[in-house]
């Protein structure tokens, strides 16, 4: 692919990240089905913390993850974001370390890391969609 086409993809994925990312933020703010919408509102002090509510409580998060719509939004966001971020890293690194062989090395090593992250994230999403562990 030509560099200009990749840059076009970078713009497009950037805009898509904006769309899916705002869903992601809506999720942790408006849609959380708790009476008190305080993030990180845990009762108890000292060494034993008891979770009393908040949007990141296990059952709440699990309920979100097992919805097909949210699952697909997460998956799309992950795909687009991984591309955007690792292409960004590639641009930064290949500007710093120039040369044909170096650039190939950068591209393929980042591709491997990106795939690992993508598979790792997809694993969470798919396993949670199919009921969790």
């Amino acid at each position, binding site marked *: 692919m030509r560099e200009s086409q990749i840059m076009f993809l970078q*713009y497009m994925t*950037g*805009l898509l990240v*904006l769309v899916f*990312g705002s869903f992601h933020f809506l999720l942790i*703010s*408006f849609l959380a089905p708790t009476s*008190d*919408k*305080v*993030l*990180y*509102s*845990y009762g108890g002090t000292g060494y034993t*913390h008891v*979770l009393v509510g908040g949007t*990141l*409580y*296990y*059952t709440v*998060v*699990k309920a979100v*993850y097992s919805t097909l719509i949210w699952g697909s939004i997460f998956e799309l966001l*992950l795909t687009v*974001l*991984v591309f955007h*971020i*690792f292409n*960004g*890293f590639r641009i*930064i690194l290949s*500007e*710093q370390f*120039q*040369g*044909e062989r170096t650039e190939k090395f950068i591209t393929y090593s980042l591709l491997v890391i990106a795939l690992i*992250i993508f598979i*790792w*994230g997809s*694993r*969470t999403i798919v*396993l*949670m969609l199919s009921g*969790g*562990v």
Partner: protein
Amino acid sequence: MTIENKKGWISWFNPFKYGTDRWMYALHRLTGIIIGIYLLFHVFETSEILKGPVTWNSVMVSLDYPFGVHFGPLILSLVLLAVVYHALNGIRLTIVENGLMLPKPYRPEYPYNPKSLKGLNNFLKILLGIFMIVISAFGIIFIFTGWLP
């Protein structure tokens, strides 16, 4: 292939004695790198949910109290600032780098004050600043208190 007089990193993060665009460029890179590293961490952290409620809840607590202090919301606020800046500046760059909202090409004349840095481009930057302050203020208030308008 060696390239002489290549400054690399130092020149990206040295926006002094240049215009606002250079500052915004440096910040865009910096926030991009921060968000990228955050994603790696976030993917790992959310995968902890597969280990069941006990692990998940203890992860949530330890993220709220890293180093034994109530640092969680603070770190989250910094990430929010980075995300808001990167997103807004990204929109601005998508507009400007594709040649929209810029003046027509013209012959440069002494003292070479670029027209592209005036007019609509400047307006976009001011708009970015306003949105940045408003969104991040609401976001940080939400992170710390849970208050929504």
